[in-house]
């Protein structure tokens, strides 16, 4: 036991308390940094003195996984809300002026014509309204198609983001693996760990994955089909290529760069990327014809068929049997709303409108034409055109309302999880202040000890003289 021991004890204590104060400083400095997990100095006894055993990052790994899952759900719902919101705007007829109103005007124009079959004004009005109706079908169809195209163009962008995140995560894994147990830059490594957690959370917004942390503290990321994006310090890149098949050859397929024959679109189940794939491949139009545009096409095709059939039963002003009233302006003919037009023969000569039931110029066929609006044509002959369309609009509304609730729900959950994380990992200035006082007291006491030890040494020295 020597007086020098006290000096060493004091020295170690001073250094330790100094380090603790520095760490408190780091916490305070980062009290507003997003994703920062507070660090705590672990004091442990060193022989007779004290040392910092480690700078512990206060972070709950399980909570991190839950946050990533919620981030995935939230990213999914928000992307869906955006896309469906755009589609809702197309169908929004609360102020009128949409297909419902135009269909009503169309049938009305036939009825007006029936009262004055040779009237040029009535014929001209019918032609104008018919053109507006066809134009509105084309316009809705084009808008829906552009939602699809938009979703498609975002896919390569997101795939690039995935690759970037994966590469950054792998870099951090590499750094952490490299550090092993010799690296003394704990705060630096902790900050990398925080950054990695943030990257994973942001990646989760885009794509659903399963993450695994190994004993060396590297985190690997796997897609839902089990194939890895990141494994330790290695990454597997994704790529896109147009699929070159109908209906639109520019639609992208996703696959791993090293396995170009294996399309992995279906392995991406939730998140922004999944939403854009779904909007493009299912929501707007799909092979089962349940997409919004498919239903619009079905309505257009049915209207064109019924109107044309009735028109061909009637006589025009020159006693000719009627020809097609509407046409699909594409060769070979495809019955889609985007091609719907009024027959150009009728535009050229409105006397070709077949309003009559007989060769004597009556208005009987126009009356029959108007009656089509009340026939049950759609939904296996259970709905009229108008009720079919109202149901379609209501369907859009319901889908949007559902996803809005979903966004609210997931936002709340995310908020709760974030607060829980903050509760564990967040910096509290009040707490750090108390720590500062504590460590400063320890430091002051250690300094006093040092002074005392020094006096003891001086006393010893003076004995020798």
């Amino acid at each position, binding site marked *: 036991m020597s007086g020098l021991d006290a000096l060493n004890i004091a020295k170690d204590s001073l250094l330790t308390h100094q380090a603790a104060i520095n760490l408190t400083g780091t916490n305070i400095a980062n*009290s*507003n940094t997003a994703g920062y997990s*507070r660090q705590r100095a672990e004091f442990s006894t060193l022989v007779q003195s004290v040392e910092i055993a480690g700078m512990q990052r206060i972070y709950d790994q399980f909570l991190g996984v839950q946050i990533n899952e919620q981030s995935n759900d939230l990213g999914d719902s928000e992307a869906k809300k955006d896309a469906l919101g755009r589609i*809702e705007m197309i*169908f*929004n007829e*609360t102020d009128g002026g949409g297909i*419902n*109103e135009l*269909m*009503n005007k169309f*049938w*009305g124009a036939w*009825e*007006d014509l029936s*009262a*004055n*079959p*040779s*009237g040029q004004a009535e014929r001209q009005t019918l032609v104008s309204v018919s053109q507006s109706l066809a134009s509105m079908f084309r316009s809705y169809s084009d808008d829906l198609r552009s939602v699809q195209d938009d979703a498609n163009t975002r896919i390569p962008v997101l795939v690039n983001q995935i690759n970037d995140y994966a590469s950054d995560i792998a870099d951090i894994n590499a750094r952490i693996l490299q550090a092993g147990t010799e690296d003394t830059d704990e705060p630096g490594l902790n900050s990398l760990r925080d950054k990695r957690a943030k990257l994973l959370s942001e990646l989760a917004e885009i794509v659903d994955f399963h993450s695994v942390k190994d004993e060396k503290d590297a985190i690997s990321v796997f897609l839902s089909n089990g194939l890895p994006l990141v494994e330790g310090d290695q990454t597997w890149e994704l790529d896109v290529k147009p699929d070159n098949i109908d209906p639109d050859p520019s639609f992208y397929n996703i696959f791993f760069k090293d396995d170009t024959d294996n399309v992995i679109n279906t392995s991406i189940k939730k998140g922004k990327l999944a939403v854009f794939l779904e909007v493009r491949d299912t929501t707007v139009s799909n092979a089962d014809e349940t997409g919004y545009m498919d239903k619009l096409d079905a309505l257009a095709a049915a209207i064109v068929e019924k109107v044309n059939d009735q028109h061909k039963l009637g*006589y025009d002003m*020159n*006693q*000719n*049997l009627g020809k097609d009233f509407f046409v699909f302006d594409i060769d070979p003919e495809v019955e889609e709303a985007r091609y719907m037009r009024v027959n150009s023969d009728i535009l050229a000569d409105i006397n070709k409108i077949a309003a009559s*039931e*007989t*060769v*004597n*110029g*009556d*208005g*009987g066929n126009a*009356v029959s034409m*108007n*009656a089509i*609006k*009340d026939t049950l044509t759609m939904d296996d002959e259970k709905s009229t055109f*108008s009720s079919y*369309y*109202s*149901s379609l*609009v*209501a369907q*859009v*509304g*319901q889908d*949007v309302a559902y996803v*809005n609730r979903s966004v609210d729900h997931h936002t709340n959950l995310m*908020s709760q999880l974030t*607060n829980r994380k*903050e*509760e*564990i990992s*967040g*910096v*509290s*200035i*009040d707490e750090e*202040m108390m720590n500062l006082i504590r460590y400063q007291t320890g430091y002051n006491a250690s300094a006093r000890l040092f002074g005392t030890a020094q006096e003891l040494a001086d006393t010893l020295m003076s004995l020798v003289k």
Partner: protein
Amino acid sequence: MVMRISENIKFNTIVDNMFKSQDSYNKLAEKIASLKEINRPSDDPIGMNRVLNLRESRASVGQYTRNMDGCESWLTITESKLSAAGDLLADARVVAIAQSTATSSAERRSSEAGTVQQLIDEMLTLANSKYDGRYLFSGAKTEEAPFSSSGRSVAEIGTAAAADGNTFDGSVTSGGTYTGDENKTYAVKIVTDGELLADTTYRVSVDGGKTWSDPPSTDLVDGAPPIELGDGVQLTFTEGSDADHYLANNDIFYVQALAPGYYNGNGEEMSVNIGEGTPFAYSVSGEAAFTDDGEGSVDVFGVLNELKTALETNDVDGIAACLDGLTAAADQISKNISKCGARMNRLEIAKKNMADMDMDLVGLISNVEDADVSEIITKFSMKEIALKASYATASKIGNLTILDFLR
């Protein structure tokens, strides 16, 4: 368990709260601005569905009301013309009574013949009246003047006509003797084309093109014999010379067959819908009002012309014989005036029902779609207070920390 509160939690809680308040506030502000509960389908999908369906019903109701207004005008004019016709017949009756007595003379009668001629001319003008560009009394043939001053003593078959879209360059002539007793339009439709007439299949219509014979016929022959359309009406086809202009599918040929008398229209009444699946016949055909074909039983022009002839030839018995005819003619006109009256009554009731229905629909739409302004404004004021509270709380952020208390 005591919860740790970090700086971010304080911040997030206050900011989240503020955003929530602002969100509800803005949603209400939108409803006040538009005065609608439903500003997009997702606000109330079922409501939106109802609104669209109700709007369609309202559009239909508007259409039917317009139709009824048109019918009302038509019937009003028809009634007044028929009434004037009744007056003319009364005048003719006065002449007939006066001139059938022994007190008159051949010169008087001869001069009265001129009066009757004037009555006939006026009657002709009346019977050929138009409304809104269409003849009132021509049945469904509204483009052609229904009555001519000279009558037919025997049935006539008009010239064969073709729709102008036909490409056939041969000729079609009508022939035969019409044995029917009312005016009809006969038509032929080619249903398959053939290079030679003999290979062509066709159908016949006796009602102007509404319904067609089944099965189709194939007995077209170049030149002779003609094909029989029914009731003695015949059409003869002669081949053309140009290979590009044979008979084509859907070529239409038609011919008018006219019964004896003065009438050129037909017996159909025009109709429009005044409700869903509810056709309403509004026109009175000249056949029913002025002729003895179809529904009519007295040839009004025939009787008047008989009177004129009797006056011209000083045939007193003939003049007396016309009295019964004139009475019958006046009765027929009267009957048709009542028809107009009955129809107008029906229209009045239907119109009122439509107006009531429209009001109901407006109410229903409003219930679903419109915002209750006073309720919204009350909620809005409450949200405003909540928003102010959240702003006040937000301003306190960072005001109270331990730093205020450390030396």
